[in-house]
């Protein structure tokens, strides 16, 4: 059995609302192993993005805990932001003033990689996602699909154990979405990474090795 790279136990999260706390997640537990891909589907407002943010350490659960593999140990992701987990967002979330190469290298620079090494790693990953020739282009000069490829390269640059993808094809046309999804699954498989994919698409969700549905604040097999 491959090692556990992501472990969430009894996660609960509620948001403040005028009528009182609005529970979004009640008791979510999840274990993801290296090389495993997990898809999570759910209706809008079901808490998919919130769950992903808790798994990635971008938010703190009201109850429960999250651990991710980082440098040989399971640690709280909030303490190791940018290292144990890589994010791919629906809107790419690239820095508009930086080139593709700089966007990817930035993620490495932030965690302390020296500039030359960060650029080298970024160039290699842009080659991997098929954008070597567009390394010096700004996001505004790239198509949506190309931006998402840059975002994928950025998510990989710090060699995370887990990739969290939040609707990575949500803003793309059908053909580009297919290309990106294939690239994402290929890269994850080739690097032995774990993938947690939040998507509305039943078709893309079916391609994951494990499929889950988030409904009523609870995660259950699809």
């Amino acid at each position, binding site marked *: 059995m491959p090692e556990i790279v992501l472990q969430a136990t009894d996660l609960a999260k509620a948001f403040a609302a005028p009528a009182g706390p609005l529970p979004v997640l009640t008791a979510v537990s999840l274990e993801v192993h290296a090389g495993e891909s997990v898809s999570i589907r759910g209706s809008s407002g079901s808490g998919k993005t919130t769950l992903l943010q808790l798994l990635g350490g*971008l938010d703190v659960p009201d109850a429960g805990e999250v651990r991710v593999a980082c440098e040989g140990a399971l640690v709280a992701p909030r303490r190791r932001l940018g290292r144990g987990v890589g994010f791919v967002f629906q809107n790419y979330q690239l820095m508009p003033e930086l080139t593709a190469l700089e966007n990817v290298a930035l993620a490495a620079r932030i965690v302390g990689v020296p500039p030359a090494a960060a650029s080298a790693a970024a160039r290699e990953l842009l080659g991997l996602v098929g954008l070597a020739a567009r390394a010096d282009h700004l996001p505004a000069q790239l198509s949506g699909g190309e931006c998402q490829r840059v975002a994928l390269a950025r998510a990989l640059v710090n060699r995370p154990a887990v990739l969290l993808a939040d609707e990575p094809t949500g803003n793309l046309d059908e053909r580009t979405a297919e290309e990106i999804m294939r690239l994402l699954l290929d890269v994850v498989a080739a690097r032995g990474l774990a993938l947690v994919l939040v998507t509305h698409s039943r078709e893309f969700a079916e391609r994951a090795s494990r499929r889950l549905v988030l409904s009523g604040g609870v995660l259950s097999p699809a």
Partner: protein
Amino acid sequence: MPWFLHLALRQLFPPGKRFPAFATVSILGVALGVATLLVVQTVMNGFGEEHRKRIRESFGDCQVVAARPLARPDELVAELRRAPEVASATAYAEGPALARRGDFSGVAAVRGIDPLDPAQPARKYIHGGTFDDLDDGRVILGLGLAQQLRVRIGDKVELWSPAMAERAEKGKAPLPAEFEVCAILRTGFTEVDNAAALIPLRRFREIWNLGPRAHGVILRLKEPARAEEIAGRLNVGHPDLVFRPWQAIKRNFLEAIRFEKTMLFFLMFIITLVASFSIGSTLFSAVIRRSREVGVLAALGAGRGAILALFGLQGLLIGALGTGLGFLLTGGILHFRDAILGAINAVFGDGDMVASVYQFANIPLHYDPADFVAAGVFTLLVTTLAGFVPALWAAGRKPSEAMRDA
């Protein structure tokens, strides 16, 4: 270069934009504030410095006077010349007289001076004629007095001294002393120019029946700025004499100039503060606009300190570039100050106030490095603060909150 500095530079100066609106407007705002502050300060320093110089040159660095005329002024002059702080000492006498030419007359403040003294300050303020022509039969008149008497160089004027009244009392005919005007004096001090009449000390003594006496001694000091301290030291051993340093001669006037400068600094300070607040508000909107980017940076592992530095540095960079540009702008404005003033006078139809009111050939300047340092430090401090306040807000947000704003 740290990543946040690299990103701060890119956000301020995005590639492909020669004049990015936000950076350009902010930097120009700071530059104008700094330039306004420094132009006003430098010109005010110039006026102050010029006035101080003229006070010293008109009245000496230090005047030595007594309750009565000095009985042996030559001895005192010789003694004072031996003091290491004294550059020169010269006796003088002064007194009022009635100046008259034909149907025109005026009150003259006559001063007896040594015409052979090469350090005689009046030499610098000759408006027409020649100082060296001054002799026992000639007089140098202040411009205002000359205009009042309707005299030109070469014309004759009569001086009626109070000593002549004594002659009349004794039953003798009070004959006026007649002088030919050899030069016109223009110091810029209205009270001097409207009354001054300079004649040789020897002749003054004759007309005023002073004998060998003099009314005082004018000292030129090697370090005029230390006049107050030196005057105190020289006064020791001369209880019957009063040593008046130039700072005391026109104290109220100098205080007024200093107060004016302080008030203008305060007003300009407010202008710079307003510019800094507008930078703060612009940076605040920029931070809010970049809210999701802040969330992404946090998701990528950027700490609060780095996010704080990212936006704080933008304020600092705007401040530094604005201050530098403000210094250049100050130099440019001051270099072309007279042309600028000429244009303003032409537009508003005013005469040359600098010449007519202050009687300066051009706007005086005095660059004080302390003003530049103070303006630079103050501006950097305020603009950095203006950047840090929104940065604090941005850095304090949870990444998920910031991302939700996307």
